[in-house]
């Protein structure tokens, strides 16, 4: 196990989650604004996450070959659900009084979305991103099978040669990574909630 492998693992997670945010948040917004698109979008992202991760990576590999891009796209598709769903839910759950006030004082739909609704949905969206990251850290392990490298290849190798010390080391790094992201981002999320409501709701 080298620093390089850890970095690769982190980069796989980083780029896939970046894609998730870039596509997931707008998809959530579209689901919120257009009731007709809602069912389709939510269903598709749900199915994507229901498909076993390895199967999903396999399917993508058929088209893209064994490559890091395959892993990134796989992770992206796999972690869309929490971001899309939380964006949608966050927007729907904005206090109706606030929405009415926003409309009543003369905000356009776009004004409402960017000045009020998205800022208020932000903690929940952030929570979705946190879930996406934590999931991706784990799922990226499968990346080793489709040419992604990262910690997955170390774990696979140490199992193959029964190197228990290396297995423990690599899984420990993985656990620290997932728990660490979760811990830090939960803290940030609480701060965001506190700023809006005065309560640090989990």
């Amino acid at each position, binding site marked *: 196990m080298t620093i390089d492998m850890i970095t690769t693992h982190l980069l796989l997670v980083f780029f896939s989650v970046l894609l998730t945010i870039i596509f997931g948040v707008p998809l959530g917004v579209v689901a919120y604004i257009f009731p007709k698109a809602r069912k389709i979008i939510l269903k598709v992202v749900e199915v994507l996450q229901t498909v076993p991760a390895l199967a999903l990576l396999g399917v993508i590999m058929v088209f893209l070959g064994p490559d890091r891009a395959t892993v990134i796209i796989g992770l992206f598709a796999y972690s869309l659900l929490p971001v899309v769903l939380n964006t949608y839910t966050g927007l729907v759950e904005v206090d109706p009084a606030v929405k009415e006030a926003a409309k009543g004082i003369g905000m356009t739909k776009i004004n409402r979305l960017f000045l009020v609704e998205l800022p*208020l949905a932000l903690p929940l969206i952030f929570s979705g991103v946190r879930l996406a990251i934590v999931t991706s850290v784990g799922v990226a392990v499968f990346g080793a099978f489709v040419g992604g490298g990262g910690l997955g290849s170390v774990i696979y190798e140490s199992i193959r040669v029964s190197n228990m010390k290396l297995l423990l080391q690599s899984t420990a790094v993985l656990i620290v990574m997932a728990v660490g992201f979760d811990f830090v981002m939960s803290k940030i999320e609480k701060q965001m909630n506190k700023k809006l409501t005065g309560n640090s709701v989990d």
Partner: protein
Amino acid sequence: MIDFQNVRKSYDDTKVLKGINLNIKDGEFAVLIGPSGCGKTTTLKTINRLIEPDSGKIYIDGQDISTFDPVKLRRSVGYVIQQIGLFPNMTVEENIGIVPKLLKYEEKEIDKIVHEMLEIAEMDYDEYAHKYPYEMSGGQQQRVGVLRALAASPPIVLMDEPFGALDPVTRTTLQNEIVELQKKLKKTIVFVTHDMDEAIKIADNIVFMDEGEIIQVASPEEMLTNPKNDLIRSFMGDRSSDIENQPQVVDDFMYTNISTAYPDYSFKKAIGLMARKKVDTLIVKDRDETFLGVVMIKDINHKLKSGEKSTIGSLIRTDIPTAYSNTNAEESFNELMESEYDYIVVLRANNTLAGIVTQTNIAKSLANAVWGE
């Protein structure tokens, strides 16, 4: 001026507004009231087009509002709601400045407006401007809600039960403030409430609605004395009867258990009587009950010191204010307030003694009229 012409609205089979015709003048404080489901809030929301009528027209200053861009219309009409609806992601300053910001005012201008607005509500800029809504009490939040509605100087402000969720003390304070504000800023205010006390307190005109129709439009006084139907009367509660039974003549206030004396009482007897009754004056009457005047203890003491022994008949003062029992109460109150005596003697038509009205009587009666028995 806001002019409703035959405005109708239905949801499915339910007719919510059955042809509203209403005229609200510039600078008028109009309060829409009625039982729930009467259409008062629907009527209010047609003014800023949050609800579009099925038929009929609404004109603001002669212009049909259905031809306006709804967003522009709403930016020119203030809007305050019961749930307050401040934006939790914005500070007080940003909340107040939001409409000017939407209207693309310059930063400096917005800043000036925010300062002015906070000043109107007597909220210290340094203390409040950078607070978030959750950091304030409900009352303070709704003050900011009102300021947000006023910030872009809209000539019309719509208020949908704005004080309904506040505690009674805060509600009273904010009611007083909005009345003051309206006098100062001369806004046209359309205010929805289900609380008749509130309506009577703040309205120039009360618009009473029931089942999608306007039943009566009248000033609070007119509606109190002349409610158009039983429903309005019941909404008024006991107040209408209060007005009918309000004491109108001095007879209603009169105190009849009084200390009297005859003019032939000796000084000693009069003083003894005063001591027993714990009073400092006696009302002197004839044997046939005709009122003669009053005797005061200080006059008797004065004579006693100079060694005179006589009857009180020589000390009768006749300058005490008197009234007949059917005299208009207000008139005699005024006389009492200006008099050096603290009561008025009430006489029957034949000048016999009926009773007295003291300042305490008046205070009690006023208290009853205001707070109930």
